[in-house]
């Protein structure tokens, strides 16, 4: 199993028209059967490196290319992209655009058909079977969920039975449950079918659980390739590049009790290494904060609301049923639940874009049924999951001004200046928002929302699709929103955001409110978490596993709690040292 399958030697590459080389004297060898994660900051050349392997560079992108790349003994310079496709399958980050046929089986068997395999349908079916999509053969692509589309893109790559599979950020848009599903498929392909798997990944916790090796890239260089455990323990090197190791590793790093740097990288490892506390068991159902909420002014009231939409087959699909909900001043609500639980529909009801089938939605005393969305926009701002869909002008500044200008607000330019400042967009204000990076786009969409000066702001998955460093930045900015508006409602899978920011958590499942309470009441309720398919942050799992009370929500909390405990024990004369 130690054959060198991919060999990249002294490769330099510059995109046509680019100023700087994207790859700088890159050397990398990957063995057959490896499961490799490529990590690195934005613009470090990760995607470019992967496109070397399937021959898109230098054949499709004809830039300045030197050096040599060998895949399965083929020199990529001498081989055609089409030939290399039999050796390398590639799944893009925007995998949606990779699906080119209307039906599932047609798409999965597209490549085998193109290469003239008479049994193309069987090959397609086999690929669907491998990715767990059997039974969806005749469905249309637009009927699939995001997770299923991703699996289909993978099936398309697997259909030619290549030895190597590359996935660019496989789980960026998925909830934790579906993310695990994708990685389980990759793991199976790796272990049972001997495929070499290469992923570009930001989520180090998934890397720790699934990948065998890690390649670190920085500014077009491959810095090193190491076994996963060794790689993730180099906390300082990673943090320097804005890559965050698993929370348990960060915690161990911050506690100076780990002398030999044998930090844990997974939860199960950590549970054995940190001291177990015999604190009293936390009450399984913590207090809800209903009593505290009483007396505050309500902003949104929903009474027995149900909502259904028409599907492609002209049948109605009920997404929300019997929702009773009041949103009050000062609420920072996290709306959680799996994909398809009804989170986006609930938000759209508040904006007045859609009307409930039954029941009523009152916003600031106005019934949405009787008001147009334009009218509701005076009180409600909805920030889309995909920021690009919010950009209707050709510069950031114009987009931020749009609402104020339409309403002829006096001296709106000053307000715009202030908001651009708040979201660190002043230097970008003349740029076209659609051409900015993911994090910048997200900031622009927040600025657009705040410029509308609403009573309540609704955010749909504000931290999805971002690398961890940008995600932290956005989380911080969301934290400042409470100074601008009376209430914030965030639909999210990002449990870190929920833990650090929310003061009220609403759990949705299958169109019902499963739970409504404080974050403690959610994260201390194992049954609820399992039922709703939620994955609490790792550090929280750890502190609960160690019976710590109260449960810690952040790494810093955890470190402080453990240090305090050590302090106490040391005062008792008991020496603790973890080896």
């Amino acid at each position, binding site marked *: 199993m130690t054959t060198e399958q991919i060999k990249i030697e002294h490769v330099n590459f510059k995109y046509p028209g680019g100023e700087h080389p994207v790859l700088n004297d890159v050397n990398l060898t990957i063995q057959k059967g490896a499961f490799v994660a490529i990590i690195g900051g934005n613009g470090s050349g990760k995607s470019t490196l992967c496109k070397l392997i399937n021959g898109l560079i230098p054949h499709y992108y004809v830039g300045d290319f030197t050096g040599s790349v060998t895949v399965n003994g083929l020199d990529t310079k001498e081989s055609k992209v089409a030939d290399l496709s039999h050796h390398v399958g590639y799944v893009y980050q925007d995998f949606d*655009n990779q699906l080119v046929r209307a039906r599932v089986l047609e798409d999965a068997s597209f490549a085998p058909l193109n290469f003239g395999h008479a049994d193309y349908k069987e090959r397609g079916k086999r690929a669907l079977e491998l990715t767990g999509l059997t039974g969806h053969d005749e469905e249309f692509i637009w009927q699939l969920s995001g997770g299923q589309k991703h699996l289909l893109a993978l099936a398309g790559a697997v259909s030619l039975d290549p030895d190597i599979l590359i996935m660019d950020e496989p789980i960026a848009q998925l909830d934790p449950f579906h993310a695990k599903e994708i990685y389980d498929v990759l793991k199976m392909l790796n272990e049972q079918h001997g495929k070499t798997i290469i992923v570009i990944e930001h989520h180090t916790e998934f890397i720790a659980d699934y990948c065998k090796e890690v390649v670190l890239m920085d500014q077009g260089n491959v810095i090193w390739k190491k076994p996963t455990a060794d790689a993730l323990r180099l906390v300082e090197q990673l943090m320097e590049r804005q890559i965050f190791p698993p929370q348990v590793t960060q915690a161990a790093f911050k506690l100076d009790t780990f002398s030999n740097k044998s930090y844990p990288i997974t939860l199960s490892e950590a549970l054995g290494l940190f001291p177990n506390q015999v604190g009293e068991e936390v009450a399984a159902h913590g207090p809800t904060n209903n009593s505290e909420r009483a007396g505050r002014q309500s902003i949104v009231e929903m009474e027995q609301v149900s909502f259904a939409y028409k599907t492609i087959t002209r049948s109605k699909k009920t997404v929300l049923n019997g929702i009773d909900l009041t949103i009050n001043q000062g609420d920072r609500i996290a709306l959680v639940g799996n994909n398809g639980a009804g989170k986006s529909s609930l938000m759209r009801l508040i904006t007045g874009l859609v009307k409930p089938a039954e029941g009523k939605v009152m916003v600031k005393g106005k019934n949405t049924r009787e008001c147009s969305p334009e009218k509701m926009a005076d009180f409600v701002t909805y920030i889309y999951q995909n920021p690009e869909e919010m950009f209707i002008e050709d510069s950031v500044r114009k987009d931020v001004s749009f609402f104020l200008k339409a309403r002829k607000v006096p001296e709106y330019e000053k307000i715009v200046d202030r908001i651009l400042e708040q979201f660190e967009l002043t230097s970008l204000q003349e740029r076209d928002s659609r051409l900015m990076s993911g994090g910048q786009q997200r900031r622009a969409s927040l600025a657009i929302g705040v410029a509308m000066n609403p009573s309540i702001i609704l955010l749909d998955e504000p931290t999805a699709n971002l690398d961890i460093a940008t995600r932290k930045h956005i989380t911080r900015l969301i934290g400042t929103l409470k100074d601008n508006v009376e209430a914030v409602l965030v639909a999210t899978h990002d449990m870190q955001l929920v833990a650090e920011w929310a003061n009220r958590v609403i759990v949705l499942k299958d169109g019902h409110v499963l739970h409504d309470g404080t974050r403690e009441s959610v994260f201390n309720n194992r049954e609820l978490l399992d039922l709703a398919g939620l994955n609490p942050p790792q550090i929280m799992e750890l502190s609960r596993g160690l019976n710590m009370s109260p449960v810690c929500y952040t790494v810093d909390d955890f470190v402080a709690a453990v240090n305090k405990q050590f302090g106490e024990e040391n005062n008792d004369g008991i020496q603790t040292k973890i080896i």
Partner: protein
Amino acid sequence: MEYRQKLFDKLSVEQVKIELLNTAYGNDQTFLAKLDPRTLFIWYLFFGFAPWFIHNQAILLGMFAFVVVMMLIARSSPLIIFILCLGLLGQGGYLLLAAWFFGGDLSTIMPLLILTMKLSIISLASISVFTSMDPEKLSDGLLKVGVPGQVSFSISYAYRMLPSLIEEYHHVFLSFRLRGKAPEKHGILYWRSIAYFVKIAMLSFYPLMLSTSKRARTTVEALETKGSFFAFNNPKVKAIKLAHLTFRQRDYWFLTFSLLYVISLFIFGILYS
């Protein structure tokens, strides 16, 4: 209020998307949909073009009856039929008014009505045929009759992208509504509101262009790796891809029946006149 709401429901972008997709892909179980695309091409070649050269009213009437039955068998989308009727009635009414205005009588209107009849036959024939062929079938059929692979692929790809594009358009449109300001007063006959909606409906197209070109990059790369460019005009691939197209008994029956119907129609029409 109630009626207006219902009308808006029918006219929503979402509804248009559903109707379009159903027209394109929804009817794969009808008799016509099970025919070979080439059968439909042959049939269409006659019913789509011949009416221009026929002036016999009886024959036209007979053809009209036939295409109406075809349309019923094809189970076309009600929305499309509604739009068609609206167009035809509008045109008929306009002709009637014009004829009247210039002092004509029934004899002036007759030739105009015949023209409308011809147009109806052609439109109904087109609707029946295209509802019965989903884009895949159409593109396979075209490929079979010798149209280049790129063209036939583009047709099926365009339909594959249609729902995503409509959805994105819808979101941009809603962005305008969520941040814009609708006119305070509706104006006479709602003209202010209508002007407002027409304006944002047009503006919403611009942001789409850029995002589409961004999407295209991944798609073209994917097509490259999936060997499409290699396959477009490769005879072997074409043969495998089109192996499922065969004339069956029902194709022969259908063509024979159509032929007999048309022949007897001509005999009857000529005798009658």
